[in-house]
């Protein structure tokens, strides 16, 4: 504050009676750089920013309130739209908090699958963030190279999940489906493309003085300030702190995987850029290790999963009571349900029958499975965690993503609260921007990687 007033006084002296006025500039809510919806009310002196007021709330979706009105699994599509660039991490975070609330753990393979897809999501998130920052600095080609790489990762996600962005993949007590055949090979191929795109993009900008001049020394935030603001994730690590939920409070199987935490030294935009670039490499490393360590699912261990019976036939036979004809068979349902059969279900979902839907064979072929299916879907009958409250953090792409879930013992949450990583960073934005030039909003805001979906919920 002191420095600001001083410059004003100084300006008054320099101006020697010439009247100078501050210029008010509304950046956003409809502004190309304000991806997502946010408004920066800036006070400018020439090109220099004297004051910034960040206004959020344009994208309020009512996530937390909606979560109270649907059952526990019904919240998952909503979490897709929190950080819509890395939705799987949100899925994982929410599901793990509910699992903690119920007190169940998921099979190891499921944990690996969650880690693999989370890290792929993280890479795609960082690709978007780095690419968008570069694009807003004018390097459009970099953006498209990185988006191209993201495309390969999204195809990877599509092959597992059945959607690219609105994944709805995790379930309370597991994930929807197992990894498909040939996932590992496709994954390596996609990573090769990603690495190529990243290296080309680095070649275009990293040592280019135009770029480094824009990034270095702008948006500087010290480690103490970052911690004081409650900032987490790459933004905090760029300032030099080493906090990472995956290391400090390991969940799933992160404690078994070897990876580094990249940290910066000065806490400027250049560090954030470099930390994100390095994190992508580390994430790919994690995935590669996890693919090696992935415990084999029963599909691989036991090829004898029974005769394949089309689902419709199975339903019809079961309906007339011809159970011998379908007993031991494996249901061939629609392609979107690949990887949800009995063989996969055991390795990707907990065996707690009160939490997860039955394997398809049971739902189609016997009354117990059918009843279980109904009980879990019918309103007010589904998953019912015991009374209690729980907080569970995961390392989202932007930092610590925590879900605080309160259960009153009924079929839907009493309260769901998200700790979105963007929120803390956005509150530090005025401090980051004050004193910089108007053009510095672009790299700084880009490095914040503001995601309206999780910021405003």
């Amino acid at each position, binding site marked *: 504050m002191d420095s600001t007033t001083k410059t004003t006084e100084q300006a008054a002296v320099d101006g020697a009676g010439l009247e100078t006025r501050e210029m008010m500039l509304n950046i956003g809510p409809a502004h190309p750089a304000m991806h997502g919806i946010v408004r920066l009310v800036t006070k400018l002196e020439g090109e220099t920013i004297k004051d910034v007021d960040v206004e959020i709330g344009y994208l309020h979706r009512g996530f937390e309130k909606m979560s109270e009105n649907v059952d526990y699994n019904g919240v998952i599509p909503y979490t897709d739209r929190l950080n819509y660039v890395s939705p799987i991490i949100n899925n994982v975070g929410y599901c793990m908090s509910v699992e903690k609330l119920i007190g169940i753990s998921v099979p190891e393979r499921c944990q690996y699958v969650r880690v693999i897809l989370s890290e792929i999501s993280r890479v795609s998130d960082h690709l978007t963030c780095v690419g968008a920052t570069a694009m807003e600095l004018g390097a459009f080609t970099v953006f498209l190279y990185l988006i191209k790489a993201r495309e390969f990762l999204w195809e990877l996600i599509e092959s597992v999940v059945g959607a690219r962005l609105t994944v709805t993949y995790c379930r309370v007590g597991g994930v929807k489906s197992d990894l498909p055949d040939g996932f590992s090979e496709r994954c390596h191929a996609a990573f090769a493309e990603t690495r190529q795109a990243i290296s080309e993009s680095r070649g275009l900008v990293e040592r280019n003085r135009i770029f480094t001049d824009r990034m270095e020394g702008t948006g500087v935030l010290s480690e103490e300030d970052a911690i004081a603001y409650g900032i987490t994730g790459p933004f905090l690590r760029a300032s030099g702190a080493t906090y990472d939920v995956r290391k400090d409070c390991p969940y799933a199987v992160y404690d078994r995987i070897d990876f580094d935490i990249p940290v910066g030294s000065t806490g400027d935009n250049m560090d954030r850029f470099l930390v994100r670039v390095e994190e992508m490499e580390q994430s790919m490393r994690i995935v590669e290790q996890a693919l090696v360590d992935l415990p084999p699912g029963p599909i691989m261990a036991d090829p004898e999963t029974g005769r394949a019976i089309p689902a419709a036939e199975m339903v019809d036979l079961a*309906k007339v009571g011809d159970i011998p004809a379908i007993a031991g068979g494996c249901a061939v349902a629609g392609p979107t349900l690949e990887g949800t059969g009995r063989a996969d279900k055991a390795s990707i979902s907990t065996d707690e029958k009160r939490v997860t839907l039955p394997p398809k064979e049971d739902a189609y072929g016997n*009354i117990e499975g059918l009843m279980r299916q109904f009980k879990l879907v019918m309103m007010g009958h589904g998953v019912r965690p015991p009374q209690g409250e729980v907080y569970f953090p995961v390392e989202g792409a932007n930092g610590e993503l925590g879900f605080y879930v309160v259960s009153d013992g009924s079929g839907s949450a009493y309260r769901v609260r998200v700790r979105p990583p963007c929120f803390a960073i956005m509150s530090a934005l005025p401090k980051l921007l004050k004193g910089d030039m108007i053009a510095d909003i672009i790299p700084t805001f880009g490095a914040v990687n503001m995601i309206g979906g999780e910021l405003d919920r």
Partner: protein
Amino acid sequence: MPELTIDGRKVSVPDGTTVIEAAEQLGIFIPRYCYHPGLSTAGNCRMCMVDVENSPKPQIACNLPATEGMVVETESEQARKDRAAVLEFLLANHPLDCPVCDQAGECDLQNYYMNFGLYDPRFSEQKVKKEKAVEVGPHVMLDQERCILCSRCVRFTDEITKTGEFGIFNRGDRAELGLYPGETLDNPYSANVVDLCPVGALTERSFRFKARVWYLSSTKSVCGGCSRGCNTDLHHVTDRPHLNDAERLVRVKPRFHAQVNEWWMCDEGRYGHGWIDRDRLGEVRRRTDEASRRQVESDWDAAENALAPALAAANGRLGVVVSATQTTEELFSVREVLGERFGARIVVAPQAPGGKGDDFLIQADKAPNRAGARLLGLSDAPADGVESLVDAAIAGELDSLWVFGEDLVELVGAEKTRSLALSDCLFVYAGTNDNPTVSLARWVLPTAVPVEADGTFVNCDGRVQRVGRAFAPLAQARECQRVLCELASRAGVADAPSWSTTAEVFAAIAKSTDAFAGMSFESLGEQGALAASREPLAEAGTP
């Protein structure tokens, strides 16, 4: 008074109590299919198996009398395994019908599987086919495949209605529930077997495929079908109008009340709710002019503007016909506003002729609140009270005549009603449903039906019971007491009542009427309370 231990907790119960009842006292629920407190014990489903100390075998809790020092385990590993095994047997021949079964959502097979079963299915034999979708009576549908042969329905028809239509035929896995040859399940209490059936074997025909039970909301209420006042649960759905042909009230289920109806209710009351969503009066209507009988839509404001001055000028030249189907609160507000403030002559419409009762639940008087009217002092003493009132109106002795909810055409005949319509008397009809009288009135005021408004009925035994409010009044319809309060204040009455809730009206009743003294709307609760009355009430017997 034997004292026994169930799951480590001690309880002492009267002699002859079974373990299942003793456990219930402790709040421990033992799963059961065949056991029903209102029926004799059969003990054939074997679901209620518990571990008893010093007993070599598991015992069925429903038929095991509590004895001194008995130690019962309901949650031991053995008991769990037993129950799961029983369930597995029961489900062996159960068809995969949840998708088409109306019971899904309130089915004890589903509930117990998730709570007590949870075994991995092993059955891999051909299931036995039996008949599906059999009409066993006007209200009930039977699916023999789904039946688990608990025999509750058989015992109901044997013990409660004593009509004995049902029986279990054949043996082993061919055993099936059926009607005795030549029988149909058409006794007046037939639909109770649907409530009794723990699975989807017996379902209601009127509810068949109308909605899913998990969409239904429930409101505690009282049946208005006769003066018995059976306690009910109203099941309704308002957020999915495509279901149940857009009718909001989907079905009525009896609610246990030890003194009134126990677990049962008659079919007449259960299926007599169609009028709530059919032929309802939706908007205020008025006659275009004196001569013409054409009615046009109007609104409450216009109605109050027109009727309030008429009331203010009535000065005793005002007649009111009320109905014993109205809640006590409605009747009371009519008495207080029209009777006390405007000096109206109030006549209660007499009991409709031809009503038949029986010695179980059904009463001959089909009006649910005649006792309430009597307690409020609105007696239907002269049998021709309505007729003389209408005559007076036609003769010009009355300035205006208000009719609440009754069909004058039925009471005094079409001819008289028509001449009333043509007379100078201001004929106001306030009611819920369309009838021949409505089109003759000068003003038609739509009022809320009991399920759209709170209120109380006083049954034939003098029990004051609350009618629940399930959903908002339809279209422009308003609660009767609100209409009257607003009219009174619009007419400039100095001490116009200003009740805003039913509880306030009831408090006023309790203050002014001895029979209700000491009661409050809240204290009535789910069980109701007996009105203190010295007068003999309508002839009635307890069930």
